[in-house]
């Protein structure tokens, strides 16, 4: 052992001054960065992130390949020459934001199982901070799918409409949707330590919200009860906002407001839930 040993003068400690938000920024940024480093170091994540958009568009987008565009446009209630892919793209992007919370949820359960949550919570880090870092981490992971999918759509021959500003609004809406769902997901799995939970919940919420949203088919063809769900479904808001940009070049910005409200509500409720119920192990 070396002689020049670091010495901690007892009682005299280098502690940075308390910052805003109870001094949790350092912990939050560190944990979020950890989340992203771990995610993008995993080759499977990269593969799936890139493969999934292509598969969606290739398989789902080809479902109506033998149907005439004119008939399809009538069915979809879209302007002539739109085609199913143009209609579908905003819906698929919205749908893919729905399951991003699952990633954060699984990484949280892993941290509980491997004891890392104890390592975090034995430092001056609050449960709310851990929760928020997981929300942002998993939402960010979902967001990298957006550019990939747009490139994929372009490769499949989707027509792009709308101004830069409209696109920015649409993407902001997707970000809010991703944050909202990831906040929701992480809150309901806050007290879980079971590997199965995130998958079960993902199946349980993804399926109904995907189909009762107007993301994949126009909601005007739904029965009444499904339209009611669709009216309250943030996935639908994002799909309609995107379609407003991509198909009509005339988005209804109210949807962006709804999405903002959804994200805010989920974050506030989720933070309260996590501060109380986030399990350590």
């Amino acid at each position: 052992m070396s002689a020049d040993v670091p010495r901690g003068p007892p009682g005299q400690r280098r502690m940075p001054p308390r910052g805003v938000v109870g001094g949790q920024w350092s912990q939050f940024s560190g944990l979020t960065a950890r989340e992203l480093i771990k995610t993008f170091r995993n080759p499977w994540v990269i593969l799936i992130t890139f493969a999934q958009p292509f598969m969606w568009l290739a398989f789902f987008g080809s479902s109506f390949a033998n149907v005439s565009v004119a008939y399809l446009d009538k069915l979809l209630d879209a302007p002539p020459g739109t085609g199913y892919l143009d209609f579908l793209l905003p819906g698929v992007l919205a749908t893919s934001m729905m399951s991003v919370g699952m990633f954060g949820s699984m990484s949280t359960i892993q941290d509980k199982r491997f004891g890392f949550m104890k390592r975090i919570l034995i430092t001056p880090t609050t449960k709310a901070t851990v929760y928020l870092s997981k929300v942002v981490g998993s939402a960010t992971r979902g967001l990298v799918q957006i550019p990939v999918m747009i490139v994929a759509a372009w490769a499949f021959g989707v027509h792009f409409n709308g101004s830069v500003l409209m696109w920015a609004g649409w993407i902001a809406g997707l970000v809010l949707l991703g944050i909202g769902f990831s906040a929701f997901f992480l809150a309901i799995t806050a007290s879980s330590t079971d590997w199965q939970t995130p998958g079960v919940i993902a199946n349980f919420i993804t399926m109904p919200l995907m189909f009762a949203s107007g993301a994949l088919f126009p909601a005007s063809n739904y029965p009444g009860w499904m339209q009611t769900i669709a009216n309250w479904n943030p996935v639908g808001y994002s799909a309609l906002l995107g379609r407003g940009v991509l198909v009509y070049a005339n988005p209804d910005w109210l949807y962006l407001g709804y999405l903002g409200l959804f994200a805010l509500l989920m974050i506030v409720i989720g933070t309260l839930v996590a501060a109380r119920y986030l399990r350590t192990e």
Partner: protein
Amino acid sequence: MNGYAIVTEKMTKVYGGGSLRLGIPGVPPSARAERGVPRSPPPVEDDARGIVAVDHVDMRVRSGGVFGLLGPNGAGKTTIIKLLTGLSDLTAGTAQVAGFDVQKDPLEVKQRVGWVAAEVILDDDLSGWENLWLQAKLQRLADWKGRAEELLKYFELTDRKKDKVGHYSTGMRKKLEIALALLHEPELIFMDEPTIGLDPNTRQMLWQLITGVNREFGTSVLLTTHYIEEADRLCSEVAIIDHGRFVAQGSPAELKSRVQADFVELETAEEVTDERLRGIPGVSEVRTQGKVWMLKVASAEEVIPNILRALDAGKIHRINVEKPSLETVFLNITGKHIDQVGADIPDYRKFYASMMRARR
């Protein structure tokens, strides 16, 4: 802070438990934990009001030393660390750590203590350096790189700092964990069973490191262990803990001097009775553990010939002598070995009880 790193009063932790739990703050320390009384398996009341993992512990740990919590599996050692670091809430009582109340100012406590887990806990996907970086972020250290480099050098990890921690050996992982715990210059560092599962060489190395950390960094250490030798070698003060209660406390030398006796452990095929064994000259106390007899004697050397005369020497399977050590201190108080085979059977019972509860 007036020379004490830790002060607790009636610190109590009950896991689970039903409505009876409301009565806990006032309950007298459970009778089964009275000094010197040999214990039967946990009473049924334990299940009704949950598992009393830490039972009215009054604890004073002086700054600057190495304090050891010595006790068998399931004694409540890990739980005490969880309570003192704010990982788990106290059911009753108070605890002051590094000058702050754990329940009122947990974040103040947490930035003044370090923690080394029994099961090494690191992020295996990150490198050694990245683990240090994250720890610095979590402890809000602005200026940590110099100290991190120094620690890596001290623990001889510098040339592996860029490797993923998943590829480290067990000894290296343990060292890195201690480096993490020391990064923010804590006043006090908790080490839960620091050498459990390590090979003898690594254990030796770690013993040196722990002493080094205490002397050279001036950091108080609280460690838990169920190895007699470890407590004896490392600790300036030892508290012996059993069933969540402190049953003795003092420096290893003090504790040993309190037991002016040897213990003789005896296994025989002969049918013998308490009375017959107690009648052997020099035997002061007799206890049984199934087929094994435990005799408290003034001097084993003088009593063994008496035993051989009094019993049928041909039927004796085994005679084992325990000279004064922390083991005999524990034996004297609880009537059992710290590392006894089967000592954790009550734990299984509790475990299954809690499983049954969880299923319902």
